[in-house]
């Protein structure tokens, strides 16, 4: 807990540095490309088109407005996926910063997740246009979007602190993570509705915090209903526990990071 409070203080003290690093990371991602940010939009767009073809036209799924049903949760999933993947490498990928005694290493998980989040933020206008084109109604529940994004940020942060630390000592971690993420993608109700699967499996899928986060995004953009506050609260608690565990793991091993890079 004390470590957690120290982390919050460090983040506050280094907010300008965090903003600067995030800006640079975002800029770096598209340096030398013609289409820039649109490359990161291309992947969810193609996936939406292909899955719509498969589910609606081949498998005759009867989910109304399937492209929106999928696209509105594919975007936050991509943010999660990218943040966890690059977060796993956030320490080993930046030896220059880690070996600099002055640079506060504990901000790296934060900047990595924030840089991936910016992609999501940039894609929101496209999502809003899609909602208008498909005539999907949206309303006041949009105001809870920042809340859900903050929740996803915290959940990812806990995971990244843990994985980033482990990855310094065991480089196998990134390959394990890569495969787990792929499995979790199919086991999270992203391409399908949780109510369309057998009841006995629904319970299992609900153990996954991402299920609830995805569900909240879908409530906001697709169902236009309020979010599930009880489930959201539980995910928040899980996230805080993960962050405390992650920060503890990070803090106890931080001093030997430089020797292992």
């Amino acid at each position, binding site marked *: 807990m004390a470590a957690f409070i120290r982390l919050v203080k460090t983040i506050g003290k280094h907010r300008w*540095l965090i903003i600067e690093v995030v800006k640079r990371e975002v800029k770096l991602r598209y340096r030398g490309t013609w289409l820039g940010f649109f490359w990161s939009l291309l992947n969810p767009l193609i996936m939406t088109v292909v899955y719509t073809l498969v589910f609606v036209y081949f498998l005759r799924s009867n989910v109304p407005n399937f492209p929106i049903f999928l696209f509105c949760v594919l975007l936050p999933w991509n943010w999660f996926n990218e943040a966890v993947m690059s977060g796993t490498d956030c320490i080993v990928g930046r030896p*220059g910063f880690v070996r600099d005694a*002055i*640079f506060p290493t504990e901000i790296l998980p934060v900047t990595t997740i924030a840089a991936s989040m910016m992609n999501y933020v940039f894609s929101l206008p496209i999502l809003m246009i899609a909602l208008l084109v498909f005539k999907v109604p949206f309303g006041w529940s949009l105001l809870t979007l920042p809340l859900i994004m903050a929740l996803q940020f915290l959940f990812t942060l806990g995971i990244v602190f843990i994985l980033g630390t482990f990855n310094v000592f*065991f*480089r196998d971690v990134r390959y394990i993570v890569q495969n787990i993420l792929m499995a979790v993608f199919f086991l999270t109700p992203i391409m399908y509705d949780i109510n369309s699967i057998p009841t006995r499996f629904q319970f299992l899928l609900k153990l996954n915090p991402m299920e609830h986060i995805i569900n909240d995004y879908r409530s906001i953009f697709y169902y236009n209903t309020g979010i599930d506050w009880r489930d959201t609260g539980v995910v928040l608690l899980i996230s805080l526990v993960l962050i405390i565990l992650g920060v503890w793991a990070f803090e106890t091993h931080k001093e030997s990071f430089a*020797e*292992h890079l």
Partner: protein
Amino acid sequence: MNDAVVLEHVSKRFKRSVVSGRTTLKDAILKGQIFRMGQSNGYFEAIKDISFSIPKATVLGIIGPNGAGKSTLLRLLAGIYHPTSGQIKTTGRISALLSLGLGFHPEFSGRENIVISGLALGLSHQRIAHISEDVIRFAELEEFIDAPMRTYSSGMYMRLAFSVAVNVNPDILLVDEVLAVGDASFAKKSRARMEEFKNSGKTIILATHDLATVENWCQQALFLHGGQMYGFGDPRTVVAKYREMATGQGN
């Protein structure tokens, strides 16, 4: 407390496995080490029980043969490594010019790295904007400052590192001589800047093989050998001791 740097019984051990290859997850599980990350049976002691202190505004030269632990000691002083046992106390802002710990991200441009280094040091945006022109001019990198640093030659990299290190107004400057090279004109310039530093009452700690520099320029010397302190104090006496040992081994 007028001491810039105080070391009390400082030792640094490294895990053997770090030196001889990384532990994999498989090894860790097979050896039941998974919950003991960073522990191992084999150790290499790079610094053994070193204690000394130097007052502010001192120039200290660290000498010793290759592998004596000079760079490890500098990294400990810089805070890049942490002592296995013992304590290090430093007073004031430290700027380190070591082969490790330059704090640059190779994908970012020189200018971006200057801003990030400055912010990490706690400088304001205004202050950074103020010094960055000096940094760039001193490093003679006007032409390449907006290119990613991975495209820099090692000389350009080193010049920028030196320029940042001396322009952020540190109280203690750590220099690993291996880095303080460059072409003749830059070497002359950096010498002059170090002289300025010395005269303005800054603390400088320098690891070097150039014994004449230590005798003529440093006020204190530290002789390291096999991680142990073989001599500390007056540069002439300490250098003489090192020379004696080196020739003794030669015979």
